[in-house]
C-alpha cells in the first residue's frame, strides 16, 4: 500500500442543510482538490446527507498538542459560572 501513502489525505466537511454550518465528517485520500471533492461526494453523501462539501488538506490543519491537555482544558473544569445556566429564560423566548 505504499502508493496510498503518496496520495494526500483530506478532511471532509459537509453542510447538511442550508443555514447550518459545515461539520467535519471524516477524511479520505485523493490526488488533488478536484478529486477530493468527487470522492467526498461518493463516500459521504450517498444517502443525501449534504447540500455542500468542503475539503481541506489534512496537512493544513494545525492541531493542539495532546500533552498540553491539562493546561489547555482542565483549568476550565471548575469554572461552572461560565455556563449560562444561572439565567431564567422567559417563556416568550422559546427554544434556545
Amino acid at each position, binding site marked *: 500500500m505504499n*502508493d*496510498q501513502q503518496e*496520495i494526500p489525505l483530506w478532511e471532509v466537511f459537509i453542510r447538511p442543510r442550508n443555514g447550518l454550518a459545515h461539520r467535519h465528517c471524516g477524511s*479520505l*485520500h*485523493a*490526488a*488533488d482538490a*478536484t*478529486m477530493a471533492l*468527487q*470522492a467526498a*461526494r*461518493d*463516500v459521504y453523501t*450517498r444517502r443525501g446527507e449534504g447540500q455542500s462539501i468542503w475539503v481541506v488538506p489534512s496537512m493544513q490543519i494545525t492541531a493542539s498538542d495532546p500533552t498540553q491537555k491539562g493546561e489547555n482544558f482542565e483549568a476550565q473544569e471548575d469554572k461552572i459560572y461560565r455556563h449560562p445556566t444561572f439565567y431564567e429564560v422567559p417563556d416568550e423566548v422559546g427554544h434556545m
Partner: protein
Amino acid sequence: MDASLHFDCLVRLADDHMILGHRLSEWCGHAPMLEEDLALPNIALDLLGQARILYDHAGKIEGKGRNEDQLAYLRLERDYRNLLLCERPIGDFGHTVLRQFYFASFMGLYWSECQNSNDQILREVAAKAIKECAYHIRHTGEWVIRLGDGTDESHQRMQNAVADLAPYVGEMFHMDETSQQGASAGLIPDVSKLAATWHAQVAPVLAEATLETIEVKPILGGRSGQHGEEMGFLLTDLQFMQRTFPNMTW
C-alpha cells in the same frame, strides 16, 4: 408505433445499462482505493436503476407478461442487444474509467435528445439520467486526465486502453434498421448525428491527458446479438441466481 419495434429499442438501451452496470459492479471490493470502491458501484447503481425502469417499461409494451427480472436474467445470449463496448472485460482501472468516460459522454448526448422522445417514460428516465450522467462524465474524465498525464506507467496503460477500446467506439453511432425506424418514429435519437459532438467533447480530454486518439474500423455485432466470447461468462455470473432459484426475490 409497432410494439415490437418499441420493445426492441427499449431493450437495447436497457441492456447497455445493465451489462455495463454489471461490469462496473465487478470492481466492488477490488478497486485500487476505498474511495473508488464506493465511486464505481455508485455509478453501477445509477446504471442499474436506469435499466430497471427501461426493462419494466419494455415488458409492459411487449404485453406478454414478462417483468424486469425475466428480461434481465432469463434471456439467451443472442437475445441481449447491448453495445460490445459495454460487455468488454473491465481490464485495469484505466481501461474501466476510459470505457465509462466514452459511454457516459455518449449517453449524456443521448439522454439530452431523449427529452424530445414521444415516449413519456423515456423522457422521465432522461430527466433523471442527465444529472447522473453529468457526474459520470466529470468523474471518469478527471481520472482519464490524471492517469493519461500521470506517470510513465499510467500513461502507457491509458494509451493501451485507448487502443483496446478504439474498435468499439463506432458501434455507438451506427444506425441499423431498428435504430433507423426508432428514430423515424420519434422514439429514440438518431445516434449517427451524435458522433461529431461526442468526438468534440472527448478529444480535448484525451488531449489534456496527452493521449493519442486512434481511429479504426468499428467492430459491430452487439445490436444483432453477436457478442464476444466474454459475454457468456458474464451472463453465467449474472443469471446464476435466477436460474438456480427461479422467481426468487430479494
